[in-house]
C-alpha cells in the first residue's frame, strides 16, 4: 500500500518535473529567438549604414551612389515590408558590385579597399545572422508543435516566431570562399 502511494507520488513528481523542464526549454528557446532576432536586426542596420557610407563616400559614380542611397532609404521604415526592402538593398549592392571591373576602378582610391571590405563583411554577417535566426526559429517552432507542448500549452502566450526570408545572396563568391575555405 505504502509502496503504491510512494510510486504514484514519485510518478506524479517525475511527470511534473518533466513537464516543467519541457516548458522551461521552450521558454529558453524563445529567449534564444529574441537574441538571434536582435543580432539579425543589428547586422541589417550595420549593413545599411555601411552601404550608405559607400553611397556618400564620393568613390562611386553619382548614379550608383543614388541607387544605393535609395535602397538604404527603403530599409528605413518606408512603406515597403522589411524583408522586401532589405532584399532590394541586397540587389542594389549586387548590381553595384557586379559591374565589370568594379573593384579595379576603385582600388588605389583613398579608403576604397577598406570600405568595400566592410560592406562585404557586413553583407556576409547578414547572411550568417539570418541563417542562425532561421535555425533557432525552426527548432522553436518544432518544439511548440509537439503534441505534449500543444496539449498543455507549454509555450504560454509567446507568439509563434516567424522565419525571416530575404535575398541575401549578395556576394556569392565571397560567401562560398569564407564558408568553404578549402575550395
Amino acid at each position, binding site marked *: 500500500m505504502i509502496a503504491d502511494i510512494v510510486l504514484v507520488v514519485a510518478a506524479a513528481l517525475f511527470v511534473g518535473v518533466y513537464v516543467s523542464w519541457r516548458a522551461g526549454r521552450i521558454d529558453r528557446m524563445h529567449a534564444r529567438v529574441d537574441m538571434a532576432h536582435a543580432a539579425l536586426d543589428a547586422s541589417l542596420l550595420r549593413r545599411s549604414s555601411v552601404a550608405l557610407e559607400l*553611397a*556618400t563616400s564620393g568613390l562611386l559614380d553619382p548614379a*550608383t*551612389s*543614388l541607387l544605393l542611397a535609395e535602397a538604404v532609404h527603403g530599409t528605413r521604415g518606408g512603406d515597403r515590408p522589411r524583408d522586401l526592402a532589405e532584399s532590394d538593398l541586397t*540587389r542594389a549592392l549586387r*548590381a*553595384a558590385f557586379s*559591374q565589370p571591373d568594379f573593384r579595379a576602378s576603385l582600388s588605389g582610391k583613398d579608403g576604397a579597399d577598406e570600405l568595400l571590405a566592410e560592406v562585404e563583411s557586413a553583407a556576409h554577417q547578414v547572411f550568417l545572422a539570418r541563417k542562425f535566426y532561421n535555425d533557432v526559429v525552426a527548432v522553436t517552432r518544432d518544439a511548440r508543435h509537439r503534441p505534449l507542448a500543444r496539449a498543455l500549452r507549454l509555450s504560454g502566450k509567446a507568439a509563434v516566431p516567424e522565419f525571416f526570408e530575404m535575398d541575401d545572396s549578395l556576394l556569392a563568391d565571397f560567401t562560398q570562399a569564407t564558408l568553404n575555405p578549402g575550395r
Partner: protein
Amino acid sequence: MKIGMVCPYSWDVPGGVQQHVRDLAEALIDYGHEVSVISPADDDTPLPPYVVGAGRAVPVPYNGSVARLSFGFLSASRVRRWVKEGGFDLLHVHEPSVPSLSLLACWVASGPIVATVHTAIPRSRVLVVTYPVLRTALEKISGRIAVSEAARTTLVEHIGGDAVVIPNGVATRRYRKAEPLPGWPGSGGSIGFLGRTDEPRKGLAVLLKAFETLGAQRPGLRLLIAGPAGDPEEVLNRVPAALRDRVVLLGQVSEEDKVRVLHSVDVFCSPNTGGESFGIVTAEAMAAGVPIVASDIEAFRQVLRGGEAGELFTTGDAAELALAAGRLLDDPARRAELSAAALAAVAEYDWSVVAREVLNVYETVVLGRTGVAVAQ
C-alpha cells in the same frame, strides 16, 4: 544646333519618358537640327538612326519596383565618349535625378546643359543625403524644364532653382491616319474608350451606365474598350446581360493598335471624373479626328476649347452623356464638324509647337557659351 539628348530609361521598354524623348528629337530634327540621343538599349534592339545605344540596362530595385537603368563607371565612360565625339552645342538630359545615364551625363560633361523633369520626386531625403555627391553633377544644369506644374513644384521644393513648364506634346501626325480594326466601326455605330478599366477616375462606370440607355435604344450600337484591365469579367458583369455581346474589351493594346482603335469608332468618350492634368488620351483622339464626348473637367474643357472641339457633359452624369453621345451618333454632319474642329484645336499641342518652346530654352542657355565638352 547640334543637340545631345540623354534618355535614362531603356529604349526597348515602352514608357512616357522614352516617348517624349523620341517625339521631341524627331520634332527637332524636322526643324533641321542635328540630334543624337543616347539611351540604354539591348544590343539587338533596332534603333532609329539618331539613337546611340549605351549598352544593356541593368534591372535594379528602384522606388519599390524594378527599373532598368544604366549606372556605373562603364556607362559613365560610354557617355563620356559620346560627348567627346558628338561635339554638341548643348546637352538635354531627361530625369536627371534618376540614377541612370542623365545623371552620369551631367557628371562627365561640362557646358550648356538643359534638364527636363517629368515626374514628381518622392524621396527628398535621399537627395539630401547624397547631395554632396550629386551636387557636382546637378549644379551644371543651366536650364530646367518641367512637364507639369506638379513636377515643377517638387523640383523647386526638393532641388531648388526654378523651371519653365513646357507640357508634353502630341505627335499628331502619328494619329492622323490608321486602318480601322476589322469589322469596325460597323453599321450600327460604335463608341470608344481608352484607359484603365479598374481606375475609377477614368470614369468607365459612367460610360457603362450611359451605354445601358444607348444600347437599349440602338440595337446595333457597340462599345469598344481598350486599356489595361484588372479583370475583364468584372467589367462585363457591370453591363446588363442583354448588352454584353456588344461590349468588346481589347485589354492593353500596342501604340499602333491604339491609333487603330481611335479610327474604329464613330464617337470617342472621355468620361474621366478627375485626376487628369492635361488629358493626353483625349488630345490623341482629337489628333485622330474622332468626334469626342468628354466630361467637363478643367483639363478637357481647356483642350476641347470649352466645347468647340468636342461635346462636354456634366462630369459623372451618365444620362447627359447618353444624350450627347446619342445626338452625335444620329448626326453625321455634326460629327464631321467636330472632327474638323478637333483637328484644328489639337494642332496647338503638336510637338512641332512644343519643340519651338524647347528651342527657346536652348537658345537662352547657349548664349555666349562655347559648347559641350568632357569635364576635367
